[in-house]
């Protein structure tokens, strides 16, 4: 692991300077106390930060940033660390800045339908706090019980309902950020747009590289009058995948449209007893929401459509309890699959929906050639795949094989016109695949954007945007973590 800073930071001097800003209990610098901060939700990558700090006021974040700016110390921001791409992986010579103590909902405005929150507030807590007003916050990543809104902004998190209700970028209005130089800025505003460039969009999904989010104004939506979920079983993955396009072609935008393959179905069923048909090769979960009349009309239409597409069975949740159970199976699919394997690796590519069936077939072939089981659970409505690669890191070489297989899956997504990441971010994990998705000129443009906001390269350096050297090495020689396409274990030449 190398960073952009060649000289190592004087830890003693740094800690002494931080003590001027923060109370002693907000500065963590001993090895055992730092241990919990060494990784995020992608534990394959671990690194101990030099120091971790837990400020609780915006001025403290500004002071920490000013100090680090002055000393040339890189800073990695961290929310709940549920991220799956190593975006909050610390730097050995850097400060890890935890926003965990920024956990207050500052204001709820029922007239303008907004909530002003601190970054450490959990995603689900927002919806819970406004439920009595008949409102909710739409983006709902699977980790919504644990993940924080600040992290959601950094990753532009999506979730199950984003085909209809959008991603984080569509559901926030304003951000307060601390810049690399420690300045407090506001982008966006209380109105639906702001003067000047759309910095709100630029900041969202920038993975902590352009600023540190310290306050968020989120938009709240009225809770739908009714939501109804259908479960359709298929005897082939292709048929299930093709049905997705047909529902959309019929003019229906489902609130959620999720797919699981046979392996994932059986794992989820064994884990939470959702009532899934365990002999199916694929299931689709289709949720339609809206007014009572509209939902009834759409449920009938979707049911007929799924049967016409060759579904072997279509069930409609009879009551709220069954609806929740159907979703529970989907939402616990990751841990359910995780129970069956010592380790698993979750991917996050997106593809145009019409290529779904083809990509799933491709993943199946790759899975066989790498001799690693892959379970497929994904947001079928928006073509966002989450293949779960099962492996055992105790078997020599198996982690590397899993990583190579993951790399090939992502490169397959790019090849069919998709992206290497739909909602988990590039982080540390997908740096090499950025070289596949973007041209050298495009990567250089990203670097120029980074310099425009962080000229000294102190915010989460080394993530997201690879250096030119990384790309040329990746394409020709391979690297420490990944070997080039032609030399991969299961590689096809």
């Amino acid at each position, binding site marked *: 692991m190398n960073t952009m800073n060649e000289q190592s930071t004087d830890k003693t001097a740094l800690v002494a300077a931080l003590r001027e800003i923060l109370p002693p209990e907000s500065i963590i610098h001993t090895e055992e106390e730092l241990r919990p901060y060494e990784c995020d939700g992608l534990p394959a990558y671990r690194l101990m930060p030099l120091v971790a700090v837990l400020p609780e006021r915006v001025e403290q974040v500004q002071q920490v940033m000013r100090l680090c700016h002055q000393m040339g110390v890189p800073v990695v921001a961290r929310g709940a660390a549920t991220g799956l791409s190593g975006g909050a992986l610390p730097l050995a010579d850097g400060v890890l800045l935890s926003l965990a103590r920024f956990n207050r909902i500052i204001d709820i405005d029922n007239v303008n339908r907004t909530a002003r929150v601190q970054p450490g507030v959990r995603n689900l807590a927002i919806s819970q706090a406004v439920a009595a007003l008949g409102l909710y916050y739409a983006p709902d990543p699977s980790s919504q019980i644990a993940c924080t809104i600040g992290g959601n902004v950094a990753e532009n998190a999506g979730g199950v309902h984003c085909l209809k209700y959008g991603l984080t*970028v569509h559901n926030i209005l304003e951000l307060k950020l601390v810049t690399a130089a420690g300045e407090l800025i506001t982008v966006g505003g209380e109105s639906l747009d702001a003067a000047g460039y759309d910095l709100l969009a630029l900041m969202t999904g920038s993975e902590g590289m352009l600023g540190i989010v310290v306050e968020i104004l989120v938009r709240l939506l009225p809770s739908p009058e009714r939501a109804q979920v259908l479960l359709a079983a298929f005897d082939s993955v292709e048929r299930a995948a093709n049905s997705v396009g047909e529902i959309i072609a019929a003019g229906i935008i489902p609130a959620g449209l999720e797919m699981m393959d046979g392996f994932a179905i059986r794992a989820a069923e064994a884990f939470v007893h959702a009532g899934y048909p365990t002999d199916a090769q694929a299931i689709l979960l289709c949720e339609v929401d809206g007014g009572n009349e509209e939902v009834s009309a759409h449920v009938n239409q979707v049911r007929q459509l799924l049967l016409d597409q060759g579904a072997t069975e279509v069930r409609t949740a009879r009551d709220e309890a069954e609806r929740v159970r159907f979703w529970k199976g989907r939402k616990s699919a990751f841990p359910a699959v995780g129970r069956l394997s010592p380790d698993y690796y979750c991917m996050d590519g997106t593809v145009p929906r019409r290529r779904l069936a083809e990509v799933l077939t491709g993943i199946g072939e790759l899975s066989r050639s790498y001799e690693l089981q892959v379970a497929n659970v994904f947001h079928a409505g928006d073509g966002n795949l989450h293949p779960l690669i099962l492996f055992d890191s105790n078997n020599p070489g198996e982690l590397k094989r899993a990583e190579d297989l993951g790399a090939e899956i992502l490169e397959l997504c790019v090849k069919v016109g998709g992206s290497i990441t739909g909602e988990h971010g590039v982080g540390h994990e997908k740096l090499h695949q950025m070289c596949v998705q973007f041209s050298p000129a495009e990567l250089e443009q990203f670097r120029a954007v980074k310099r425009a906001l962080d000229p000294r390269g102190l915010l989460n350096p080394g993530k997201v945007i690879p250096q030119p050297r990384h790309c040329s090495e990746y394409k020709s020689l391979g690297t420490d973590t990944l070997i080039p396409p032609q030399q991969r274990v299961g590689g096809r030449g």
Partner: protein
Amino acid sequence: MSVAGPETEQVLQAAVQQAQEQRQPLEILGSGSKRFYGRTPVGEQLSTAAHRGVVNYEPKELVVTARAGTPLTELDRVLGEQGQMLAFEPPRFGPDATLGGTIACGFSGPRRPYMGAARDFVLGVRMLNGRGEVLRFGGEVMKNVAGYDVSRLMVGALGTLGVLLEISLKVLPAPEQEQTLVQELGSLQAIQVMNQWAARPLPLSAAAYDGMRLYLRLSGTAGAVSAGRSQVGGDPLPDGEAFWQALREQRNAFFDHQRPLWRLSMPPGAPVLDLPGKQFIDWGGAQRWLISDAAPESIRLVVQQQGGHATLFRGGDRAGERFHPLPPPLVEIHRNLKHAFDPSNIFNPGRLYPEF
């Protein structure tokens, strides 16, 4: 005229490269329907109008990719044939308005508060930066968080960061039915009612107030529209579509003036603004049109105090500030970003703000 596509792209690329070498400012335009917008255009004209045509349209994917010079009328026709639409309901301000100009201005119509803005539907762009490099960001997929969101950054940047070549947009099915309902109300009450309905699960797709009457549009299945109607009340407006089009295109009587027209972007629940002149409320309270000769500073102060920002949309002094002045740290970020994309400052210099 040559065939649109690689040839017209090369022409644009060569023009930008030459302009960069000669430090020649360029005024980027499509059909020129929005030349009235922003500060006075300067530079040699670079037209994207010949670079037109739909590149890819997949109705089942809800995605269309079209060249910047594609007229909106052509897009409407192509999408309409498949029962789909641009859900941000873009204003045209001219019969030949292009997609590129629409996105560069970031204009959205009456549906905006309920369905989203132009920026919400942009999935990807192909563009030329100030070095004349062809770059592609985003793509044709619904979700894409690889790298910074440069595509959305282009929306509303008024061409100051690059020349748009192609734009990929999410499209949506056109509603099965629409109905506009009218009722007479006082302005205070109208703002209240618009916000009250927006907080309820209703198929609302537009809400405006002309000073006397509140107009609400419902869109969806026949059942949803009639159920919504029984809740919101009011009398059906026979040609509702014509009303919304006239509002979107600023062709109704309110806009028939030579005096300065201001666009006030407000929190939707902001009270009636105490400003001289007359007002028309759109976007369920979030966009207020003001025709007023009042001093720009006094308008901006009132608007800012209520959490909004003010744009001098038409008329008035085009050499002065058209957009709400930015605080100093944001000016610096804007200038740095401008430099990152257009180091020779050739694209629409000064069109957005005098500083860059």
